[in-house]
C-alpha cells in the first residue's frame, strides 16, 4: 500500500472518466486542491458534475475547468466571483444546483457517514424547500435533505504522513475533511509529507483510512482573493 504518488497526473490515473462526479475542497481560493484541479484540466475529462462550495474565479481554481468547458453541472452554495460561470450558465451550457452552505456541508458529511438523509430547518419555506419532503418535529418545520457521495474527491491539506493521516491549517480546512470521507477515491495534495508518527495522533483531523492517494504540493502558488489590511499605527 503505497499512497504517495510522484505527481498529480499519476495520482489521478485510472480514476478519471467522463460524466463522473468530483468533490473539490476549498472555500473561495482558500484550501483548494489547485494542483489536482490543473491535472484534471490537463486530462481532458468532460461532462463533470462538480461538488464544491464555490466555482473558483476566472483563471484560478475550478475556473480552470470552466474555461475548458469540462463541467456540465455545479453543486455549490455561492458562485459569485466567476464571470465565465455566469456566461456559460446564461448560455445554457452549465447547470447549477444551489445548496445552502451548511446543507451542502452536512450532505457531504452524511454521504461519508452512511446517512442517506436527514432533516434540517434550513431553507424551509424557500425555493430550496420546493419539491422536498417537509416534516414537523416538536412543532417546528423541517425539510429532508439527502447525503452526497462522489466518484472522486480532490482535497488540500497542510501536512500529512505517508499513512494518509492529514492536518489542515487555519481556515484552509473548510470542506476538505468531509469531502475526504465522501467519495470512492480521495486524492489529497499535501504541502508537507512526513513519516508516520510525526504528527501527534490527537491532532489528526482526517484519518488515513479516508485517503487513497496523495501527492506533495508545496503550496507556493496559494492566492488571495480579497486582500484586506489595516493601517499600522504610527510609532
Amino acid at each position, binding site marked *: 500500500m503505497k499512497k504517495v504518488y510522484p505527481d498529480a497526473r499519476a495520482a489521478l490515473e485510472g480514476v478519471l472518466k467522463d460524466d463522473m462526479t468530483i468533490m473539490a475542497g476549498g472555500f473561495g481560493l482558500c484550501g483548494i486542491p489547485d494542483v489536482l484541479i490543473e491535472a484534471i484540466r490537463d486530462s481532458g475529462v468532460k461532462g463533470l458534475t462538480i461538488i464544491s462550495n464555490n466555482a473558483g474565479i476566472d483563471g484560478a481554481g475550478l475556473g480552470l475547468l470552466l474555461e475548458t468547458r469540462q463541467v456540465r453541472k455545479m453543486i455549490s452554495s455561492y458562485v459569485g466571483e466567476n464571470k465565465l460561470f455566469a456566461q456559460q450558465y446564461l448560455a445554457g451550457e452549465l447547470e447549477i444546483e444551489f445548496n445552502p452552505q*451548511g446543507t451542502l456541508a*452536512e450532505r457531504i458529511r452524511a454521504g461519508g457517514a452512511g446517512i442517506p438523509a436527514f432533516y434540517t430547518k*434550513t431553507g424551509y419555506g*424557500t425555493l430550496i424547500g420546493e419539491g422536498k419532503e417537509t416534516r414537523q418535529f416538536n412543532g417546528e418545520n423541517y425539510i429532508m435533505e439527502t447525503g452526497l457521495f462522489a466518484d472522486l474527491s480532490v482535497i488540500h491539506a497542510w501536512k500529512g504522513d505517508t499513512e494518509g493521516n492529514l492536518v489542515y491549517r*487555519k481556515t484552509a480546512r473548510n470542506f476538505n475533511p468531509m469531502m475526504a470521507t465522501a467519495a470512492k477515491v480521495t486524492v489529497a495534495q499535501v504541502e508537507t509529507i512526513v513519516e508516520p508518527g510525526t504528527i501527534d495522533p490527537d491532532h489528526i483531523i482526517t484519518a488515513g483510512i479516508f485517503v487513497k492517494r496523495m501527492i506533495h504540493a508545496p503550496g507556493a502558488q496559494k492566492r488571495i482573493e480579497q486582500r484586506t489590511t489595516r493601517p499600522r499605527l504610527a510609532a
Partner: protein
Amino acid sequence: MAWTRDQMAKRAAQELRDGFYVNLGIGIPTLVSNYIPAGMNVQLQSENGMLGMGPFPYEGEEDPDLINAGKQTITELPTTSYFSSSDSFAMIRGGHIDLSILGAMQVAENGDLANWMIPGKMVKGMGGAMDLVAGVKKVVVVMEHSAKAKDGTVEPKLLNRCKLPLTGAAVVDMVITDLGVFAIDKHAGSGMTLIEIADGVTEEQIRAQTEADFKVALDGSRKAA
C-alpha cells in the same frame, strides 16, 4: 436626521451581550465589530470555520490560509479555534450562535427575509445565509429603510409580504434601518412593532416609506429581547 451607516451599526451593537457568540454579515453588519463595548467579551464566528475572528492583518502579514466568509484576509486572536464547514454549520444550525446581524433586500412584517436572489438577474447563490437565519437564536437585520427606483420613486423594503424569493420564513427578530428600529415577534406571529425612531425622524416619515403594517411602542417596553 436619518442614521448614518455607522449609527446603524452602533445601534445594532446594543444587541450584543457579554459572552455572546456572534455572526456578522457583509456590509454594515461588519461595522458592528467597531462598536463592541470595551470590556465586553464577544466572539465573532466566521462560517467558513473559525470562532474568534480578529481584525484585518497589517499589510505584508496577509495569510492565504486565513480568510473570513467574505474571502477577506483576517487575523486570529488568543481565543481562536478552527473547525470544518460541517462543524461550523452544526454550530449554527444547532442554535449555538447567539446573534446574527445581516443585511437584507426585503423584510416582511411576519419576519420573512429576502436577501439572496432577484429573479431575472444572475443568481450568485445563498452561501450560508439560509443556514444562519434558520439556526441562529436571534436574527437582526440592518438595512436602508427603503430603496430608490430609477424613476426616483421610493420602494419600501419593509413589506406586508416579501416580493423576492425568501432566504427564510419567519426568521427576523429585529430590523434596524436608517430611520428606526422594529421588533418582530416571529414566533407568535403578532407582527412588527416600531420601538425606536432616529433623532429628527417622524413616525409619519417612516409610514410614508413603509408598506408593512406595524404597531408603535416607543416607551422602551419592547426594547429588550
